[in-house]
């Protein structure tokens, strides 16, 4: 998981007291004191694949971008093409470094209304994204404000997420996949998107600070299981989803990460385009792949990957898969390594056999 970069006191979620009452274990994450687990990572993970769970993801940043210049600013700053969606939709996108096209952050944009967007970066990247957007903004037709401290974000995920959440709010539960809608709950306006980070169906709610504990308790009363960031990490790994600081970040471009679909070359100019175009023309030197590991022992970030005894790559994330009941990993390998190729992973001197695959590991 991403290490914190801030040295100051930890930020607390609006749900902090609720978590402590539930007996959560809290850990430092991206400068925030957040629940890593309640009952345990494995049971929470399995609940998300078979039932329904709720995560507090208030540590994500929320930037409100408003004004007639908002669309143009985001279109110029990010790699994906907002022209392919419309107000009321969400889109996954990247912000690239203008010099070497590494992924400064991966972001979900919620297009709330014509001239109003919520941009949600990773916790520790929020200040950097604000600075980048301000440097890309050319006119005063757009305002950029960090509203992270004003709200909580709750993710409800799992095959029964909509069914159980419908008893709390039918309108929230009805927001379709990748749609964005304003929903009133007990007289308070929330913003809901059909997004998540688990590979399961579900939605995420942007709820004002003061109302967040009541909404969380309502989800709990609806038999939705609280889940921590530990399960969120094993879930995203099974789903083959990248984590900034591991599969994305310094030195890693979208093309290396296998996320070329996030880059829309036909939309015109965007930050980092020239540097990325140069890499595209030359061809990538490594590509992110999945590794199905024999046995339960988890490889970790930094472990070497070998083919025929020679080091060819490095693990970026690895863990035990609670659903498959063996270990899995993501790793950078040379681009010509084929699916099905046999590799070995060096875990502190032990060589674990593994097979190269195309994620997701769990469908």
């Amino acid at each position, binding site marked *: 998981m991403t290490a914190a970069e801030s040295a100051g006191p930890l930020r607390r979620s609006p749900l902090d007291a609720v978590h402590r009452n539930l007996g959560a*274990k809290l850990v430092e994450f991206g400068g925030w004191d957040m629940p*890593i*687990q309640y009952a*345990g*990572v*494995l049971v929470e993970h399995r609940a998300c694949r078979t039932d329904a769970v709720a995560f507090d993801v208030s540590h994500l940043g929320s930037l409100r971008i408003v004004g007639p210049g908002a669309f143009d600013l985001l279109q110029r700053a990010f790699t994906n093409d907002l022209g392919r969606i419309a107000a009321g939709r969400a889109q996954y996108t990247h912000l690239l470094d203008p010099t070497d096209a590494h992924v400064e952050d991966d972001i979900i944009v919620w297009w709330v209304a014509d001239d109003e967007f919520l941009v949600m970066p990773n916790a520790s990247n929020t200040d950097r994204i604000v600075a980048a957007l301000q440097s890309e903004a050319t006119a005063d037709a757009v305002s950029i404000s960090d509203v992270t401290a004003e709200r909580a974000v709750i993710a409800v995920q799992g095959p029964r997420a909509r069914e159980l959440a419908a008893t709390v709010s039918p309108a929230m539960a009805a927001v379709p996949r990748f749609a964005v809608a304003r929903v009133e709950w007990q007289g308070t306006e929330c913003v809901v998107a059909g997004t998540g980070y688990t590979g399961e169906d579900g939605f995420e709610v942007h709820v004002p600070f003061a109302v967040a504990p009541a909404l969380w308790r309502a989800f709990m009363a609806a038999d939705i299981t609280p889940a921590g960031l*530990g399960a969120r990490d*094993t879930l995203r790994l099974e789903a083959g989803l990248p984590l900034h600081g591991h599969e994305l970040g310094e030195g890693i471009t979208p093309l290396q990460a296998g996320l070329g679909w996030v880059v829309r070359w036909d939309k015109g100019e965007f930050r980092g385009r020239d540097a990325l175009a140069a890499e595209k023309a030359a061809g990538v030197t490594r590509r992110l792949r999945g590794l199905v590991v024999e*046995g*339960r*022992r*988890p490889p*970790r970030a930094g472990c070497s990957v070998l083919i025929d005894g020679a080091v060819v790559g490095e693990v970026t994330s690895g*863990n*035990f898969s609670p659903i498959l009941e063996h*270990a899995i990993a993501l790793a950078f390998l040379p681009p010509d390594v084929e699916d099905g190729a046999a590799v070995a992973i060096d875990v*502190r001197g*032990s060589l674990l056999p593994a097979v190269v695959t195309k994620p997701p590991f769990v469908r």
Partner: protein
Amino acid sequence: MTTPEGLRYSKEHEWVRVEEGRVVIGITDYAQDALGDVVYVELPDMGAAVVANASIAEIESTKSVSEVYCPVTGTVVEVNSALDDTPEAINEDPYGRGWIFAVELADAGELEGLLDAAAYEAFLAE
């Protein structure tokens, strides 16, 4: 958090149960709780010579890897191979089914250097 009477404890959070001619070793309730869900245990080799306070086994949880330090000197005479398939026994029953390995002691006097239950609980409270 439970700390059974009758066991000896190390400050590295291992427990030691003295049996006829050998000791059985595992990790404490406090340690398993701190580790979180255990998903893999790298057991010591049968017959391995161990030295007190040396790393002898590894426990992998969903969060991280931790080393198990052998609190005594001797020879590994049994390992709990049931942990290969059910490592969660360390979470569920750390003083019972979650035992990790057994050692034939080279020097029974080493046990005197370990903590009793009250002293271990006092250490945890520090």
